[in-house]
């Protein structure tokens, strides 16, 4: 039996928020509430709240299924229906879940979508995913195509394209589905709230620049991003959560405490690591333990920027709401080109004074994975810190080899230690 997880009050707060959200979803059909299925990167949470549409995020359902040991069966169900073993396991897990009663993480049934809002941001698979879901559900679908930042910066033309799609396609469909008129002033209020949460979120993530870091910016970061990346951005609950979280983190920092892990407070910070790539969700705690047992803290990670790169200055702007939504979508991490991603990671290594840089290369996600080996070389070359690499998957337990990963991580940390000793011997 696994040990009970040690929690802080912000974690309870988040748990309550999620429980309330899934409860609302469970009774939405009888209450006449509508819901929108949409994706995390480039999600238009404020716009959905404007129309009182409840967001359902299929990636979150998939990762929650994996954390509850249900993904293997769901993936098997999808593969049995003809979905290839080669493709994204988030998709197959979600389809398998739908085929098995669509039971959400809290054990209640998720409603069918009133609308599929396909925010095509930073991931090609999203498009195919919703084409497949379209065949499962009889509901409207609306596509928001977000151009890729191939040259490292958004252009006025990209922004104009997104705003036009919002004005002429997305908003009219949401009006029709919800039966409510678009109220730009309400959107402004929601975005002002988002910006306040974003300010506190950035302070939390940047607290890891301190030594010891009071947070883990990858495993722990997953919890910190949850409200702001999902259904709660723009809500008072999110503001309350980030205020409470920041207070906790500041308190830990003042007492020179390290991050809280599921096994308890981290004792000694031996290695400060930047991590690229999404976590593995089937063995999330096990993987975290492999880091914390070695005294390794993830001080920054790219996964925690997948739903918005706030630490580089972006904030939702109530004065330019639609343009700001466009900028938000354009700036999500996986919508950035490889040179920009490399610059960003190198900057993290330097600013967070990292001892190393690790890539978790997940089989399912070409958006992240294609090109990671080149990023590894470049970051090593530019920063001088050693890079490491291990492979797993998002939600398919068949691709998590605990012994191999542990072995690789231990060797990697030993190598950092040896390098340190060699430097201090000079």
């Amino acid at each position, binding site marked *: 039996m696994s040990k009970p997880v040690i929690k802080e009050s912000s974690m309870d707060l988040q748990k309550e928020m999620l429980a309330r959200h899934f409860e609302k979803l469970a009774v939405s059909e009888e209450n006449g509430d509508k819901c929108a299925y949409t994706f995390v990167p480039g999600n238009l949470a404020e716009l959905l709240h404007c129309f009182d549409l409840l967001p359902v995020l299929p990636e979150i359902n998939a990762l929650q299924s994996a954390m509850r040991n249900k993904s293997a069966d769901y993936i098997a169900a999808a593969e049995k*229906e*003809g*979905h*290839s073993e*080669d*493709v*994204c396991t988030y*998709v197959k897990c979600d389809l398998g879940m739908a085929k098995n009663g669509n039971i959400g993480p809290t054990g209640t049934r998720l409603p069918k979508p009133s609308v599929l809002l*396909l925010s*095509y941001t930073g*991931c*090609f*698979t999203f*498009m*195919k*995913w919703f*084409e*497949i879901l379209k*065949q499962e559900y009889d509901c409207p*679908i609306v*596509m928001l*195509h977000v*151009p*890729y930042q*191939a*040259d490292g910066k958004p252009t006025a*033309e990209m922004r*104009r*394209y997104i705003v*036009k*799609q919002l004005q*002429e*396609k997305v908003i009219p469909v949401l009006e029709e589905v919800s039966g409510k008129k678009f109220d730009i002033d309400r959107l402004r209020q929601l975005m002002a709230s988002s910006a306040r949460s974003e300010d506190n979120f950035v302070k939390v993530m940047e607290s890891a620049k301190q030594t010891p870091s009071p947070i883990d910016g990858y495993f722990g970061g997953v919890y910190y991003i949850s409200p702001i990346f999902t259904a709660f951005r723009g809500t008072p609950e999110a503001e309350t959560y980030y205020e409470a979280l920041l207070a906790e983190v500041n308190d830990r920092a003042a007492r020179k405490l390290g991050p809280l892990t599921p096994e308890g407070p981290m004792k000694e910070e031996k290695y400060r690591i930047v991590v690229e790539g999404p976590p593995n969700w089937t063995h999330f705690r096990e993987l975290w333990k492999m880091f914390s047992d070695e005294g390794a803290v993830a001080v920054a990670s790219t996964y925690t920027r997948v739903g918005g790169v706030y630490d580089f200055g972006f904030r939702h702007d109530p004065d330019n709401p639609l343009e700001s939504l466009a900028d938000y979508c354009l700036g999500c991490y996986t919508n950035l*080109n*490889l*040179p*920009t*991603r*490399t610059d960003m990671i190198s900057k993290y290594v330097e600013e967070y004074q990292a001892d190393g840089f690790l890539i978790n*290369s997940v*089989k399912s996600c*070409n*958006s992240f*994975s*294609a*090109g*990671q*080996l*080149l990023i590894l070389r*470049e970051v090593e070359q530019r920063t001088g810190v050693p890079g490491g690499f291990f*492979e797993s998957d998002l939600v398919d337990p068949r691709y998590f080899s605990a012994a191999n990963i542990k072995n690789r991580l231990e060797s990697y940390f030993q190598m950092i230690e040896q390098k340190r000793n060699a430097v201090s011997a000079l």
Partner: protein
Amino acid sequence: MAETKADMIDLAEEIVRDLELGTVSKWKEKTGGKAVGCMPVWSPRELLHAAGILPVGIVGGGDGIEIIKGDAYFQSYICQIPRSTIEMGLNGNLSPLDGMIFPSICDVIRNLSGMWKMLFPKTPAWYLDMPQSFDEIGVDFFTHELKRLFGEFCRVSGQNPDNDSINRSIAIYNENRSLIEELYQKRRERPWCFPVSEGYLLIRAGYQIDVKEHNKMLRSYIDLAAASDCKAIDNARVVVLGSFCEQPPLNLIRTIEKSGCYVVEDDFTLGARLIKGEISTTGDAIENLARAFIEQSREAAFIYRESEKGGELVEKVKKCNAEGVVCCAPSFCDPALLDQPMMVAAIEKASIPYTSFKYAENTGQFQVIREQAGTFADSIKLWS
């Protein structure tokens, strides 16, 4: 120009197998022009042509290159085409190229565009963001995108062609598309005289030569093949689906044929025929090109459509009088493999038989595929 059909096919195969891009270098020497590589699936070749640039289709190294360096850049679960393309780049095979275009067809090709910028900083690498908004908003965006790229092409070539010049290039490519369609039509009518393995080579050769030369080659082949005396055999008529990016090895295409299938429709070289029909040659040429992409593109896995998936495939099967579908996708190809279940659902609903297998561009064993395709063809002939 080769005089017999066999010579023509040999020449086409020689061009296709030449990973050093000899024809491209010769063209550059002869004309003093520039050449730009176009990754699958579609690029605005008309704009390159108008700018005095030779568009060169780059579809990986096939089975003609040993991957040594390329494997160091990609994990085992990523498809083959980016590895062989990187291998070719690092080996210097692509040195005749003065730029590369990476169209937005999947995350791998997308990320490859950034890798190219990092690995080959002296060669321009352009990402072509094709709109997924198939309406006037998309036309507007894509017109700007194409104008931006056209400016880049002109900067590389040092030429500044006017609107009429672009329209003339569009007309030449209209002829090319029309000839390719004629070739497919002839194959549908008499597949025994127009085998897919020959047609494929002919179209692929066009990826590396001047379009006017290619038009002559196609015309000549069609006339020679039409006049040839070939015997029909009792093969099954099939549509091949899923091979629009990483190409199957030539011997795989031949294997499908030898196993008892007439391939009467396929998506092997989809880029050359993505746009159906003629593109207007009057008015704003670049807007016409953008509009043609939005309004005249075929159904493809990398293109978002709100209409029911597979509708065009079912229609195609009927139009070609095909008896079955062969789903033939590269391993780890997200667009093709995510699309496949939806396509299969559509053809199952229409009671069309199908079989499916995967390949890599450097697959070397064909016996299993021959048995599978052969059994499929036999089952069609015996039971359908």
